[in-house]
């Protein structure tokens, strides 16, 4: 007999010995005598339980506990448990919800950056050779996701800039996908710069078919020594570029700015530096920058240069946060 069974048996003796039915009680007393003689070692525990039973009967007077109290307590304790479990799971859902919204609102590319196949950190440049033999160099804080199959080679430029020397494969054209355009190549060398609102193609060798994903749904073939910008509205006219200086600039981490929106320059600079640049796109995007800027040189120096040429103001908050506002 285990402890619980023993307790159950004793509890039943206590109840039976205290019944108001005289005949039942006499019967119980006779049976109990036999049990008592058989298990002398359990007498103490039986006495304890009997006294506990009597104490319980007195709770209403000794502790002012009414039957209504007990009834309410039983109901409340069940509700309480439900409440806590709901509270824990509800807030969980609530937080997932809010967290998700913040994520989307702040930067939808943030998640893609973290789930990308190849990515670089702030100020880091990295070269990789892909499985098809194409050579890719990623600019600072840039990320790509590969989608290669037997029919196609697609690289999603999640953020930042990439230089690519495409390995020839006539059966499988290679497509660089950006939100603004698809750049389709057979075997060539070019650079794609991804900005907040546009992507820019610089052709260094051969040609690439650029298909706009913007409103105009245009397609243009861009040849060696040419460049094009794609934005949500469509494709820009094709313009000329200097191949040697473009390659040199890429190697030296220079930004070759030719009427580059100031906001794009700042975005680009922030990829090379750990300082946090905060600026308003709509007020600064109309300032165009031309010149050669070394992305890796001291940020303060670069910003001072910008302040001397454009009506902007720099406010520093501590060492890491820099506000750039229009004067």
């Amino acid at each position, binding site marked *: 007999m285990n402890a619980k069974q023993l307790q159950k048996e004793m509890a039943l003796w206590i109840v039976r010995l205290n*019944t108001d039915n005289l005949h039942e009680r006499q019967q119980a007393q006779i049976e109990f005598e036999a049990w008592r003689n058989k298990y002398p070692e359990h007498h103490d525990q039986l006495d304890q339980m009997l006294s*506990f039973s009597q104490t319980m*009967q007195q709770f209403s007077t000794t502790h002012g506990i009414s039957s209504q109290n007990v009834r309410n307590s039983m109901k409340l304790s069940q509700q*309480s448990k439900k409440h806590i479990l709901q509270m*824990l799971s509800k807030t969980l859902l609530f937080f997932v919800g809010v967290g998700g919204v913040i994520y989307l609102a702040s930067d939808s590319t943030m998640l893609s950056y973290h789930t990308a196949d190849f990515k670089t950190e702030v100020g880091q440049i990295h070269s990789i050779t892909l499985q098809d033999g194409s050579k890719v160099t990623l600019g600072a804080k840039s990320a790509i996701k590969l989608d290669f199959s037997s029919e196609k080679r697609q690289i999603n430029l999640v953020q930042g800039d990439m230089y690519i020397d495409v390995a020839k494969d006539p059966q499988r054209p290679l497509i660089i996908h950006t939100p603004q355009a698809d750049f389709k190549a057979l075997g060539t060398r070019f650079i794609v710069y991804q900005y907040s609102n546009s992507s820019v193609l610089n052709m260094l060798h051969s040609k690439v078919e650029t298909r706009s994903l913007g409103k105009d749904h245009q397609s243009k073939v861009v040849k060696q020594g040419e460049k094009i910008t794609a934005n949500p509205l469509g494709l820009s006219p094709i313009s000329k570029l200097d191949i040697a200086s473009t390659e040199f600039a890429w190697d030296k981490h220079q930004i070759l700015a030719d009427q580059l929106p100031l906001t794009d320059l700042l975005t680009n600079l922030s990829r090379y530096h750990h300082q946090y640049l905060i600026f308003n796109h709509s007020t600064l995007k109309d300032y165009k920058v031309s010149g050669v800027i070394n992305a890796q040189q001291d940020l303060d120096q670069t910003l001072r240069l910008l302040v001397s040429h454009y009506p902007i103001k720099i406010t520093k908050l501590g060492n890491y946060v820099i506000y750039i506002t229009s004067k």
Partner: protein
Amino acid sequence: MVPILPTPSRQQILQDMYLDHHDWLRHWLNSRVRYPFTAADLVQDTFVKLLQTQQLFSIQEPRAYLVNVAKHLLIDKHRRYILEQNYLETLKQHADDQDILLSSNQIEEAVLILDFLTVALQGTTALTRKAFIMYYFEGYSQSEIATEIGKSLRTTQLYLADCLQLCYEAKNNLLELEQDER
């Protein structure tokens, strides 16, 4: 309960659990726990509970384990809090016709009693609980209860015996816990 002596490896596990998950657990609870409970208290209690656990070596998912312990603690705390509120409320309502004045110690005991009674009897049927309340808190005789719930005397006795055993067990567990905490 047998006192558990911290062996070095046991000590090490506890230390690692604390260092690795304390802040995380607190953060997790912070966003979920509301007045009158605080995440800090709950984290503290959770780790105290962990000190007493025997299966320290078999914990596979520390965070899931800690959350589970915290959850049960919170369920217990919240239930006691609600029962106390309810009890005090009825005391207030019956303050005029109360012939005895209860001490704060008695009030504390009363809440504990209500607590272990409800926990002990939460798995029983409604009819069983009805018999229990009539017998122990309303002074009805066993025959009267049998008639009221429409069962035989023998069945009624079995119901009451079940309740007595469950409450007795719960009370003993409570005493053990209290001794542990001292």
